[in-house]
């Protein structure tokens, strides 16, 4: 595939216990995700979903195999500066528990990745403000996470993921802590990423959520057992 954004070749990942025992989590995963695709990763607990997401997100190094990001092999990169830059500029993370900084306002939370990138204050706060306005939180800029509902917090977290205009959005159970209506709202935003040609990789164990994706990959015991395209649900 010419437009391969993410390509994993025989990707292996093992954890090692202090006794030296090897616990293999990913046992040779081959996967190609094209630019602009919305992919849901499903599977049982312990099947390696989150580990796969963390590897794509450069939070984990591979034990063995190759990871090509936009054609570049970064599976062997260990340099913190490079990996942090990729996480900062190329990717945006969205978590189940939102993971906002409790002491910072919504605006500051969203602007933080731009701070790490070294953008000037006015620029990053303007961008953060525009993003929050676009998800209907223009009147909540100075609110702290504890003063927002779950759905609002997740929207702030999505804005944070978008502030450096990444090509890839990585989401781990983004609707897992939300009621169905708020979850639907989040999925609506995710569907809109397609219009901006952003690639979305989302881990979920809920079939109704996975329906919003173009493609569903099942993992079991560290291996891909099925990989199917579908007609995405139109909410």
């Amino acid at each position, binding site marked *: 595939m010419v437009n391969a954004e993410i390509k994993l070749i025989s990707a292996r990942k093992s954890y090692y216990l202090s006794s030296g025992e090897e616990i293999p989590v990913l046992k040779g995963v081959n996967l190609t995700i094209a630019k602009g695709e919305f992919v849901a990763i499903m599977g049982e607990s312990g099947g390696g979903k989150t580990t796969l997401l963390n590897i794509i997100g450069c*939070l984990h190094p591979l034990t063995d195999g190759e990871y090509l990001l936009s054609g570049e092999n970064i599976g062997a990169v260990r340099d913190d500066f490079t990996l942090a830059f990729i996480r900062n500029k190329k990717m945006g993370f969205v978590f189940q528990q939102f993971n906002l900084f409790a002491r910072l306002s919504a605006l500051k939370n969203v602007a933080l990745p731009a701070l790490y990138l070294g953008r000037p204050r006015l620029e990053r706060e303007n961008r953060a403000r525009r993003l929050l306005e676009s998800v209907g939180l223009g009147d909540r800029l100075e609110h702290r996470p504890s003063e927002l509902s779950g759905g609002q917090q997740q929207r702030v977290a999505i804005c944070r993921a978008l502030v450096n205009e990444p090509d890839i959005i990585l989401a781990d159970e983004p609707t897992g802590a939300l009621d169905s209506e708020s979850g639907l709202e989040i999925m609506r935003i995710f569907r809109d990423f397609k219009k901006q040609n952003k690639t979305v990789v989302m881990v979920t164990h809920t079939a109704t959520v996975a329906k919003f994706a173009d493609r569903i990959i099942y993992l079991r015991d560290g291996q891909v057992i099925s990989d199917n395209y579908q007609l995405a649900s139109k909410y």
Partner: protein
Amino acid sequence: MWREIIIMSLESLLAKKTRTVLSMLGIIIGVATVIAVFAIGQGAQNAVNAQFQNLSANSIMIMSNRGREATGSSKLSVADAAVIREQAAQVKSAAGAITGNVSVAYGGEDKSYSLIGADSEYLSISNLTVASGRFFGPDEVAGKEMAAVLGATAAADLFADGTDPIGATVTVGAKKAEVIGVLKKVGGRLGPLSVDEAVILPNTAAEKNILGGRGMVMINIQADSVDNIEAATQEITAILRAEHKLKIDQEDDFRIMDAGSMVATAQETAKMMSYLLTAIAAITLLVSGIGIMNVMFVTVAERTKEIGIAKAIGGKRADILWQFLLESVILSMLGGLIGIGLGLGLIPLVAKINIITLAYSWNGPIIGFSFSVLVGIFFGFYPAFKASRLDPVDALRSE
């Protein structure tokens, strides 16, 4: 960027006020100690300077050296001053003094005062003034007369009933003495004695009639020039050894010191004191630094999840290192500033107690502040470094 990181550090310190204040306590006390050390050091230096400011460079001082087994008792006497004056070629002047405690009575009960057996020139040498009556002259010294001059406080105490002291007879020790003068109030102390609370007699009379062997004899000598100090010291030693009939194998029964070595000794003592206090301050700062390190480890452990999030959204190791390092530096710097305030605020209070002399010194605040910052960097680095090296996935998983 720095502005944001500093604000974030301040916010997280403010979020845990009790802990912040408690962990600052060590550094507050440490820096206040540094301030005190320098105030005491500067005070001791000033005291040394004040003590010797009237001492000319050609002064030599002789004191009795008792208690040494080699000699038993000292034969040093105020009369030796006259002998030195007569025999030593390189000596301009020599004045003997003897001091001790004595009970004095006028009519009623006894009271204890300092007795100063002095030369007739004592008045002018010590910058004293007579309030009424007169000071004794060379003839009264030579005649060993019991002519007493009273310090202002002593006179007011003894003659509380309003009688004119001049011409009155007081009992000094067991002997009668006639009061011939009263001194003006001095206020402070002159060396170890308070002249205000003293009775002054001619040194010859004080030695012979009252103090005998129990007084402390001191002879002040002026050499004829600074260059001759060494020669004069040897000359005086020879004269006194002959006068005291010391055998060749006996040690001197007196101590002889020149101005230069006396100043050096006093400065050495002051320096030793400030070394000791500096060591105490250093230990306090070390302990406070360990306290800060401890608190920073707790903070890092508590915020492990935050560290994971920061890494996931693109925070570099350096960003996280700086975040925690700045927090510990701000913590210790605030502690340092409070410590400086506390130290400077305490100086006037301690100075009132009047046991030790204190003086403000710029070195105290500057060194205290620099040390607090260094402590913050040094003891904050390791926790911050550990935080920056955390595995992002492990950190994210922690609660």
